[in-house]
């Protein structure tokens, strides 16, 4: 499984905020996605958009309520089309399945189209360890593979890089001249990758959707690389999370309307590829073998959890990342694992362990913008709150990460707020205490207050008022009523 760095959230987010290039990249790309998304929705009308969202949500609820049924249907259809379905309990098993296929077929070169699940498994490292050369062929993925980094966004993996950084990277790794022409950089990548497409034995793809009634794997891309990966090599392995299954082609049409518009503001991506089994006898090309690896890796835990199941409705469009003001400040890497942003703050803790990722559910101002843009209306803020609840109050040691001090503070606060007389008395004391440290209604900025010292480093803090509202009410206002 991919390295987990979720414990470093505070340091990593701090470093990200200082990274000038990252801030520039985030500002440019994030804003563009949001505007394009709004334009695309306005074109079809908000009424239609709302209907599609409702319909998509209904389909997801239904499918996950009957996941066993649809997985079985998918299994039968893929098998009928001549493909093989593998179920992987966890990352280790998924990697073992792919490795076994690669080794037993003498695979030397593999090309990959974009797959977040393969990032989750750290599949490239596994394949490289058995001597397979793996080439990412999505331009963004290719860039981060060259840079030996991980994706920082669900649909734009190299979003954190400015074009200047990419040019320097190409210059250093591929020996091409520096340029600020994005088309030229794309041309270089295309040229380098072309020979890999033609010589690869194995093509690996993810899946945006799996259609149970036809046994089809659906991928949507803008670069055509997915189609080359799934058709040119003699073996195609599709690898994805088991929650990607949807019942029918009819259902697919709703998701094909929602996903591109939510992700990049496109009506449709340049390529929509549907792969059903390997090459048939009458086909001119296509792989000889088709394998579908369905990965659990913690997803059944989510499925069994009524408070978090909704996280499985996610279609990885990235709209919640693009709108999130926190993601917009710190980017994807600070989240410390494969899935960043608001949805990642739910998925990562549930897949890598809640205590391991205890900062993520708190790393949100709960502004709710993510829920508002989610094409499946996933209630992300509610699930973040729920995870916070488990971190604070869960009876289970594997979830509860609260400290004695925190619990005492929370209990003390509750007691104080349950006793208005004590609260009044505390207020009087606090007013005396603040007096030497304040002027003109503000706490002196040189005073370092416990808990909030970093807060007051950048903001003036108001003092407690001389008379609270309740005193003013009792003294003056009540009698006027």
């Amino acid at each position, binding site marked *: 499984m991919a390295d987990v760095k979720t414990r470093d959230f*505070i340091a990593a*987010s*701090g470093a990200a*905020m200082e990274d000038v290039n990252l801030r520039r990249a985030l500002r440019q790309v994030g804003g563009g996605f949001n505007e394009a998304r709004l334009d695309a929705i306005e074109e079809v009308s908000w009424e239609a958009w709302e209907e599609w969202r409702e319909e998509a949500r209904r389909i997801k609820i239904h499918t996950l309520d009957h996941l066993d049924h649809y997985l079985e249907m998918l299994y039968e259809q893929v098998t009928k089309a001549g493909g093989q379905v593998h179920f992987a309990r966890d990352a280790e098993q998924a990697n073992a399945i792919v490795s076994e296929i690669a080794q037993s077929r003498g695979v030397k070169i593999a090309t990959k189209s974009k797959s977040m699940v393969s990032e989750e498994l750290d599949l490239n490292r596994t394949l490289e360890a058995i001597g397979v050369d793996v080439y990412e062929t999505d331009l963004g993925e290719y860039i981060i593979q060259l840079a030996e980094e991980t994706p920082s966004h669900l649909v734009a993996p190299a979003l954190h890089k400015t074009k200047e950084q990419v040019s320097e990277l190409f210059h250093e790794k591929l020996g091409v001249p520096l340029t600020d022409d994005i088309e030229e950089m794309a041309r270089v990548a295309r040229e380098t990758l072309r020979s890999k497409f033609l010589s690869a034995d194995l093509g690996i793809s993810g899946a945006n959707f799996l259609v149970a009634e036809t046994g089809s794997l659906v991928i949507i891309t803008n670069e055509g690389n997915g189609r080359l990966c799934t058709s040119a090599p003699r073996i195609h392995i599709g690898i994805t999370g088991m929650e990607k299954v949807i019942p029918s082609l009819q259902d697919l049409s709703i998701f094909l309307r929602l996903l591109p518009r939510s992700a990049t503001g496109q009506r449709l991506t340049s390529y929509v590829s549907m792969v059903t089994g390997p090459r048939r006898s009458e086909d001119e090309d296509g792989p000889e073998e088709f394998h579908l690896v369905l990965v659990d890796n913690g997803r059944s835990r989510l499925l069994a959890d009524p408070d978090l199941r909704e996280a499985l409705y996610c279609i990885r469009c990235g709209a919640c990342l693009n709108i999130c*003001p*926190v993601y917009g*400040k*710190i980017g994807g890497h600070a989240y410390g694992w494969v899935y960043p942003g608001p949805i990642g703050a739910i998925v990562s803790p549930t897949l890598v362990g809640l205590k391991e990722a205890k900062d993520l559910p*708190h*790393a*949100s*101002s*709960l*502004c*709710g*913008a993510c*829920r508002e843009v989610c094409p499946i209306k996933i209630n992300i803020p*509610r699930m973040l*709150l729920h995870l*916070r*609840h*488990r*971190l*604070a*109050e869960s009876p289970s040691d594997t979830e509860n990460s*609260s400290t004695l001090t*925190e619990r005492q503070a*929370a*209990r003390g*606060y*509750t007691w104080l*707020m*349950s006793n*208005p007389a004590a*609260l009044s008395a505390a207020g009087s004391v606090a007013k005396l205490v603040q007096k030497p440290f304040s002027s003109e209604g503000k706490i002196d*900025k040189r005073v370092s207050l416990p*808990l909030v010292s*970093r*807060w007051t*480093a*950048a*903001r*003036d*803090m*108001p*003092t*407690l*008022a001389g*008379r*609270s*509202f*309740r*005193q*003013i*009410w*009792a003294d003056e*206002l*009540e009698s*006027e*009523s």
Partner: protein
Amino acid sequence: MTQPAEVHTSLFVTCIVDQLYPQVGVSVVNVLRRHGVKLDFPSDQTCCGQPLFNSGYTQLARQLGKRVIDSFSLSDYVVVPSGSCAAMLKVFYRELFSGDPDYGEKAEQLAGKVFEFSEFLVKVLGIEDAGACFPATATYHSSCHLLREMEVRQEPLLLLEKVEGLELRPLPQAETCCGFGGTFSVKYPHISEGMMEDKIANVLATGADTLISCDMSCLMHIGGGMSRQGQPVRVRHIAEILEGQEETGGAGNG
């Protein structure tokens, strides 16, 4: 416009207004009374429990929630000068007490009675022109809970547009969070600060001299930042604007 005497409208003043900005509470009372509202103030009210709830201390938040539900059980309306605290009473209590044999039903009842201040003026009293005068160039910050939990978008703007002397300028990226988020700004002050910087830049870009909001918590945060930077922008709760009267007096038509 005066409400019948048997209608009990209660003020839930919020901790921040009670302890830090009592003048906002006074403005709320003055505006409501000017429009004929008979207002009471249950004096045993304290915190709604949101800081606990947002920190994951659901069970403790429930204890405070029960106090609030009991304190306002006799009210017909509960007016809250904050979108955030109003959302706690109206939206989150229903979830906190969902399935509770005793308080489940009571939380539902309370939810139907809770209105944010500007929402109450427009939806319950039917007022858009509060008869106020407040000479200023202003911009309006819509707080996230007011927008997305209370779904109050237009009401504050309708009221502000009718204020004499007030030039209202649109705030760029108006619906982006200012970065306060309660405990969020204490746990991750660096991220909160970055979000605040963006918000301040947008406020300054309008050229406004006054920043108005329905939530003092956002204003404490944004205003605290602007004050530290020495920016010449004052912050005001919407009630303070709607209380504004011409100095010659008697301009109110409430």
